[in-house]
């Protein structure tokens, strides 16, 4: 199927105060199929948030898109004029951020905050705007529509605030929603609830979604495909069940092993250590010319330092970037 969003060889860097360019994304390519949920998995410093904002060119001042292309509805967003971009942001592609309490205006009612998004992108009259707002609220709050429309953010729970952000994101009927850690600040029960909302919306509205998270467990039973980022590169990508159940890249394997399973009760005498990935991914000084995970990899070979691995196809749609699998 044709992709709704196509990213080709995206390179993004940040300029430090000394003027040095620090690469954050290093040749990322992928396509997003209409109606699919793509889970992007990465830890601090993997470039996952940079990816979210660079797709619609909302990078902070010191961020630079070095090269690449983002094809959406027949345009390259990286070359588009600012006016064209403003027509797309929030209307055709919308973003949902992590902290719902920071993303909402504290002294504006929830209904008004969503209505303004709609007003910015449509020429409807007052009653049309109100009707549109009410409809989208009915979508994300099956009960209590009226109370929430009139509530201020502080009167809402974390999960309800996140639903208001979702309402803002979908009110203009976008075809792509990019959500950057939308459930990170919520407790597990609420997290599951919000994932449920996303799935329903996908089914009802046919949205395609890029769901960015550091928690692989959230993607299980939720995402259709999983893409794993490390050091600004795609290290593994494939159908969610395949990648989550039998990861092939050494980094993905190590990451999954570091999460305690529910069945591993420690008991009073047994003290085991969780397997860890040494060091912090955010502190990695990436080796140039070799595999980014090489210094921490338990399966490293001599060749790993010498050249960068290319993406290898393991199955029809399962790719991994590791020299182990190259022939």
């Amino acid at each position, binding site marked *: 199927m044709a992709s709704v969003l196509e990213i080709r060889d995206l390179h993004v860097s940040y300029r430090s105060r000394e003027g040095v360019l620090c690469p954050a994304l290093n040749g990322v390519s992928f396509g997003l199929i209409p109606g699919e949920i793509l889970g992007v998995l990465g*830890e*601090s410093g993997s470039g996952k948030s940079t990816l979210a904002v660079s797709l619609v060119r909302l990078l902070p001042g010191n961020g630079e898109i070095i090269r690449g292309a983002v094809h959406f509805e027949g345009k390259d967003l990286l070359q588009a004029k600012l006016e064209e971009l403003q027509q797309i942001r929030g209307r055709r592609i919308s973003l949902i951020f992590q902290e719902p309490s920071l993303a909402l205006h504290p002294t504006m009612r929830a209904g008004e905050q969503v209505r303004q998004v709609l007003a910015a992108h449509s020429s409807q009259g007052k009653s049309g705007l109100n009707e549109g707002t009410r409809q989208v609220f009915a979508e994300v709050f099956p009960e209590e529509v009226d109370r929430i429309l009139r509530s201020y953010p502080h009167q809402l729970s974390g999960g309800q605030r996140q639903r208001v952000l979702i309402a803002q994101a979908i009110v203009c009927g976008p075809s792509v929603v990019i959500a950057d850690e939308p459930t990170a600040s919520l407790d597990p029960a609420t997290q599951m609830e919000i994932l449920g909302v996303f799935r329903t919306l996908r089914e009802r509205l046919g949205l395609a979604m890029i769901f960015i998270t550091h928690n692989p467990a959230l993607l299980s039973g939720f995402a259709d495909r999983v893409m794993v980022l490390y050091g600004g590169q795609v290290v593994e990508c494939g159908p969610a069940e395949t990648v989550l159940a039998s990861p092939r890249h050494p980094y993905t394997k190590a990451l999954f092993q570091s999460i305690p399973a529910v069945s*591993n009760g420690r008991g009073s005498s047994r003290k085991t250590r969780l397997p860890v990935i040494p060091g912090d991914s955010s502190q990695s000084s990436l080796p140039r010319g070799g595999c980014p995970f090489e210094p921490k990899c338990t399966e490293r070979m001599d060749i790993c330092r010498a050249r960068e691995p290319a993406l290898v196809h393991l199955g029809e749609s399962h790719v991994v970037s590791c020299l182990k699998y190259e022939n």
Partner: protein
Amino acid sequence: MKIEASGSGQNMQPLLKVENLLKRYAKGSLTGAREELLALDGVSFTIFPGTTLAVVGESGSGKSTLASCLACLESPTTGNIWFEGKDIVKLGERARRQVRPQIQLIFQDPASSLNPRWSVLEILVEPLILQRKFKHEEMKQRANFLLVRVGLSPDIVEQLPTELSGGQRQRLAIARALSLEPKLLILDEALSALDCSVQAQIANLLMELQSSLGMTYLFITHDLAMAAYLADEIAVMNRGRIVEQGPAEKILKQPQHETTLRLLAAVPRITRAALPAVEQ
């Protein structure tokens, strides 16, 4: 509700014994209607030295109020907190100051619990300065010692917290909490804000400190899997009450209360069948 001592603590004095703790907040509203919120509603438990009790619950169940009361940051409305045989609720301010250093808190977000304008050294020696028991040179030595203890390099003493990664910051917060040689560490969602691989590193560090220093932990979390991994005993809270309590393994294998079942169901998990066996 009372629990039996677990493991090695059988014949020991409890380090902490909480009896019937109750905390009521007045919820004033602009219209003048007075409402009351019962954040803690008769909480009782015991922790023995060298063990870990995990308190799990959903948002708003009273977990963090419990932490503030135990760390003497808030006074409970009624109830007793026996720490090493002394009821710290009834102590005067002067006597409380003797107790406070022995109970230390570590918060969820190390980025907001560390002063961004202070160097690592300043952050580490502040508790020592406040205690007025140490000479200048001694303090520097202790700071270095603490950094090594939590797996950081003493070379970072001049750096600012913003120059550290999330995992390094949480290690620094632990080092600061350890600087006064506390007997009880309260970890309020101390792992929740960290990446999975970093969570595992910090969890291992906590276990290591427990076996080498005999630390006692109260681990507050909503992650039942991590609670089961770190704790000897789990207490499940709902609406200010402990609704189920017992050995970690038992809570996981035979959960009784619906809150526990709900929390267990909410633990996101990956299908692990095909995962290779854990090495080490």
